[in-house]
């Protein structure tokens, strides 16, 4: 992909015309120590969409999610969620508002049982009935978790841990679910299963921001996509167009 390729956010129109933006990121800058990782990133996720964020290693995908989640402080720019500015809000408060992340590498609690892990997802909730219903929903989505419910999280396989992490996030009753590399290091069969679950969740109305290195799978699943390169958005379009874009084909789809 040529470095000259630039992109302006305004050029894109939402796939779901008329939808309201749920998450809007405006020119955020962030980094670690003396190194700046994100240079003015802007993107929008509309209500009901699946948006994928693709890019190579070190492009800043996970960093973007950490900024949205409030783990990493911004150095510039703004983040709006459901029409409210949220940058500077503490991470734990955002979860209560429905902004939930399934982090890279799962980050489940290894010395808690599967059930306890799931219940940690409901940490901010008080509605017992709702929690019970959501638990059933998670079990319906990933039946293996029900079988394993008394097992320690740390003893699950990678794919099972990923399901657990997604299930745990669902227990938080998210409005927007952000998933960081859900397919990483997982057997292909399970990847399919997980992606199916993502699609099913979306069809129930959940908005999803998906970060993936597996660009093809992500773009097939999502409505729109953004391509990140060294901390900048270099392409943004509807997924089906990105799938045939020569620059994407060359760099990320291996053709």
């Amino acid at each position, binding site marked *: 992909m040529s470095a000259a390729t630039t992109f302006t956010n305004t050029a894109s129109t939402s796939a779901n015309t008329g939808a309201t933006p749920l998450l809007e990121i405006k020119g955020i800058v962030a980094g670690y120590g003396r190194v700046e990782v994100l240079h003015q990133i802007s993107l929008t996720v509309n209500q009901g969409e699946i948006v994928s964020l693709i890019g190579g290693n070190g492009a800043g995908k996970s960093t973007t999610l950490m900024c949205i989640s409030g783990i990493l402080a911004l150095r510039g720019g703004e983040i709006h969620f459901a029409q409210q500015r949220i940058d500077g809000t503490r*991470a734990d408060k955002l979860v209560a508002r429905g902004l939930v992340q399934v982090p890279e590498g799962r*980050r489940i*609690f290894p*010395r*808690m049982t599967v059930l306890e892990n799931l219940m*940690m997802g409901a*940490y901010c909730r008080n509605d017992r009935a709702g929690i019970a219903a959501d638990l059933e929903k998670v079990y319906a989505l990933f039946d293996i978790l029900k079988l394993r419910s008394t097992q320690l999280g740390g003893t699950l396989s990678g794919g099972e841990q990923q399901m657990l992490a997604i299930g745990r996030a669902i227990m938080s009753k998210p409005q927007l679910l952000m998933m960081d590399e859900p397919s990483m290091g997982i057997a292909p069969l399970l990847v399919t299963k997980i992606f199916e679950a993502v699609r099913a969740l979306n069809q129930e109305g959940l908005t999803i921001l998906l970060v993936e290195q597996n660009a093809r799978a992500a773009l097939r699943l999502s409505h729109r996509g953004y391509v990140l390169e060294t901390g900048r958005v270099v392409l943004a379009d509807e997924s089906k167009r990105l799938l045939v874009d020569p620059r994407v084909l060359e760099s990320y789809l291996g053709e």
Partner: protein
Amino acid sequence: MTDTEVFLQQVIYGLSNGMIIALVALGYTMVYGIVELINFAHGDVFTLGGFVALTIVGTLGAAAILDPATLGDASNWWLLVGLVLACGVFCGVLNAAIDRIVYKPLRRAPKLTQLVAAIGVSFILVNIALFWGGTPMKVFGGGSAAAASKDFPELLEGSNLLGEESNVVLRLEDVSVFLITIPLMIGLTLFVRKTRLGRGMRATAQNPVGAQLMGIDTDRVISATFIIGGFLAGAASVMWSLYNNTISFQMGFRAGMDAFTAAVLGGIGSLPGAMVGGLLIGVIRAMSDQYIETRWTNVVVFSVLILILVFRPSGLLGMKQREKV
């Protein structure tokens, strides 16, 4: 004394000393579990708990408690429970305050930076205890010898529960160590397992970022952990004072070292591990004093420790440590 009596006696002493070590170790291991800080100041927070206890006893003492007639009265139970609460709260708040002022700004600094800061805090607390010992109160010797050990009055009946004729000594102090410590330990375990905050603690300990992403206010959880850890240190200081009847401004050093050893022996970060580790160290000390020689006791304790760790590198009840992220 017959050999059996001697053995029984040593088991009693070993377990009751071990209980106190375990109580200090619990606070150590909780804080470690959450922020991965070897809190060198923990032992000195414990010391100050002892000074609070003696100050309270001394203040009340003029009226009733130090009167030889009521000294050792069983009705002092209420006082004992009150002391545990008062010292526990004091140490809990102190511990959390230290965290806020000293450790929190260093949370993102290298691990050893926090360790050295904790060492610094330890020195400061030692000095505070030294000054405290110079308080012009009767129980502090009028303040004339600040650095000297202070006598802690026997609040509970000191006579032998097995009868004055028995060779084996079991006094109310020995029993009270169990009566106060075991409920505290059960309460702590239930708290950590069952309550929301307790689950938040476990989650933060196992995966801080994951916990934040679940909506857990980790700063609050960390403060709560320091408060509880401090509370246990305060409670332990009362048990210690009551059991040994002595406090001194440097007593936290050995208590801290024993607790650290116990915590690691049991598997650092593990609550049952800290209890097992504490009891084990207490019993090993007693047995070594009896069957080897007192002068070799430290060597025995630490040799056992090294041997156990060589064969169980994560301690007795520790999980395999996760790789550093």
